[in-house]
């Protein structure tokens, strides 16, 4: 039996196609979501004492777990947070504390997977871009010059050295709606003028020297196999900094690519160090043919890599789950 772990409310086509392949292979599967634990008044418990450990849900039948996500605090826990009555001063603290409690609880829920094959291990899916950069560098991959700082002075020096710089979140990339606007945590170019307008110290932020691109590479990794895609984002000024600033009229060309062996070997080591058996890796290939590692998204979207390159990743994922789920 396969267990599919996801946020029920998140719609995702490539995920649906994996299910199609599982059905086609007559595989048995069930679902699990944070909603089962934090919504709808369903009761559950995890018990631990000197002699036993037991869970109200039986996990022993699951031989393989596909971990695609679990909980979105904002949409799933609103009922909990809505009922909190306290002053503004304490609200942020309270929400953060509750978030931490939830996260520790989740760790215990995931502990139930310990005897199953996990694609990937939920423990390894927490994004930490800076640590990953350090690790990549230690393995011998090239990385962009990076800095975390709250200092206008240091940022100016950094900018002076690298001409063009970007900022991006250390944690996940995402955006959400606020009234008529979107609050975004994403990659953005920083102009000199913007730096001039900053106060002497500001919220600690992550900056990187802009790496000149020939092409961007999005590489899907699954059990030591690489499925690389080249994105010609350079042809379009709209997508020069981050190809995710889509141009829908004229989508960036995306084609299959072959990585040098040396890069594959280093990336394999990196993925093993991070205990990740799957993920999407972003790289840049510079005009002088250097490969620069940017980041890894353990549960990122793979649909557009699969479709553009005709890789049938949905089937590959289903196959992997079935092989381990028997």
């Amino acid at each position, binding site marked *: 039996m396969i267990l599919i772990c996801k946020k029920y409310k998140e719609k995702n086509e490539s995920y649906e196609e994996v299910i199609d392949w599982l059905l086609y292979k007559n595989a048995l599967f069930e679902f699990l979501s944070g909603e089962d634990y934090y919504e709808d008044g369903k009761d559950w418990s995890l018990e631990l004492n000197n002699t036993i450990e037991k869970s109200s849900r039986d996990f022993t039948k699951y031989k393989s777990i596909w971990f695609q996500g679990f909980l979105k605090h904002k949409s799933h826990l609103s009922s909990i947070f809505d009922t909190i009555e306290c002053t503004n001063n304490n609200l942020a603290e309270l929400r953060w504390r509750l978030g931490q409690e939830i996260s520790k609880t989740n760790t215990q829920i995931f502990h139930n997977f310990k005897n199953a094959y996990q694609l990937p291990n939920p423990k390894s899916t927490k994004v930490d871009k800076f640590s990953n950069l350090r690790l990549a560098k230690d393995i011998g991959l090239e990385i962009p010059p990076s800095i975390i700082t709250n200092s206008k002075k240091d940022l100016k020096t950094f900018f002076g050295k690298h001409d063009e710089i970007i900022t991006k979140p250390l944690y996940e990339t995402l955006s959400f709606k606020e009234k008529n606007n979107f609050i975004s945590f994403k990659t953005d170019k920083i102009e000199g003028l913007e730096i001039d307008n900053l106060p002497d110290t500001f919220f600690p932020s992550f900056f990187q020297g802009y790496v000149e691109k020939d092409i961007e590479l999005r590489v899907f990794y699954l059990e030591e196999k690489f499925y690389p895609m080249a994105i010609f984002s350079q042809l379009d000024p709209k997508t020069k900094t981050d190809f995710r600033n889509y141009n829908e009229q004229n989508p960036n*060309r*995306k084609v*299959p690519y*072959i990585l040098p062996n040396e890069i594959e070997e280093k990336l394999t080591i990196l993925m093993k160090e991070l205990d990740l058996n799957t993920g999407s890796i972003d790289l840049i290939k510079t005009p002088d043919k250097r490969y620069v590692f940017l980041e890894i998204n353990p549960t990122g979207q793979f649909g557009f890599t699969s479709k553009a390159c*005709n890789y*049938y990743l949905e089937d590959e994922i289903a196959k992997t789950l079935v092989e381990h789920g028997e």
Partner: protein
Amino acid sequence: MSKKSFKLFANCIVVKGASLATICDLHRGKIYSIPLPLAEFLEKTKNGDTLEDVKEFSLEDQETVTEYLQYLEQNELGFWTDEPEKFPDLNLQWKSPEHINNAIIEIEKLDDDDLRKITTALANLLCKFVEIRFYETADLEKLAFFAENCRSSVIRSITVFLPLTSDINTEEIENLSIKYPRIVLFILHSVQEKGTSFKTDNPKIKLVSRTIDHRNHCGIIDPKLFSIKIPVFTESLNHNSCLNKKLSVDIDGNIKNCPSMLKSFGNLKTHSIEEVVKSNDFQKVWGINKEKIDTCKDCEYRHVCTDCRAYVENPDDQFSKPLKCGYNPYTNKWEEWSTNPLKQKAIKFYSFEEFLKN
């Protein structure tokens, strides 16, 4: 300077016909006609030294080829690279996670028992797309019954064809469109210009004046119906572009590849749909790819076009060209198929004279 190759992007694929070729841009859904010698040149030079290769043409042709390459580069169909081996061709595999992909049901005379059998079979066969056809009367209760029984299937979309008759309950159609989100489109056909006061803003309801009162309205081959996409292209390499993984139940309950085809593999009252679909006999037409079809095999549009095995130029030959195609890949001209003197025999055979007059 190191050598540079001009390469088409992997999802822009050259298809050669008898006297012209195409570049099928499967990413942006566009198709470009190019001369055959250019197609051959592009294939030859993609991993070579393009500037050297160009020199093999006569001086006059060199200019033309260079202009073409500029055009292809400007339109982002190709690019220059000194590492051509890093950009492999697109893998042309095709597969799909279903036993039947799409089904056409002529539902008018089928009873509840028949419909239950059909919906169970569609669920078991993992069918994704369903087309329901009413020709003369629209029985919305029957439609609702069908949609209700599809709930436990993996059907992604149901399209319904129904005639706009004077007694039709348009409010009920609106209700059904909300209650069953899997019904993505209601096509109300045979709409008389003056005869209707039915107006709707519902994007799922479309009115067409064309009369669709018989299955022989199908089988049209037209550039408007080209589908320039990776799955269509790759499927067409080894499979039929219309009938592969298709199932039909005709108005009398006969299980067929297509309602317009004569051959029945049994009636659903006496035969199991699942068993029929599994049989080699039923799947035989699935493998009739374009390379096997007369004329189509020489056509530069063959991998983005549809097909029709129900109405063909020579009804005695199942590999003959679709009757309702007016394209000639030897002269590269589109002509009206219905007035083509060579097609009159087949038009008579299928008794198309009547409907062509309309």
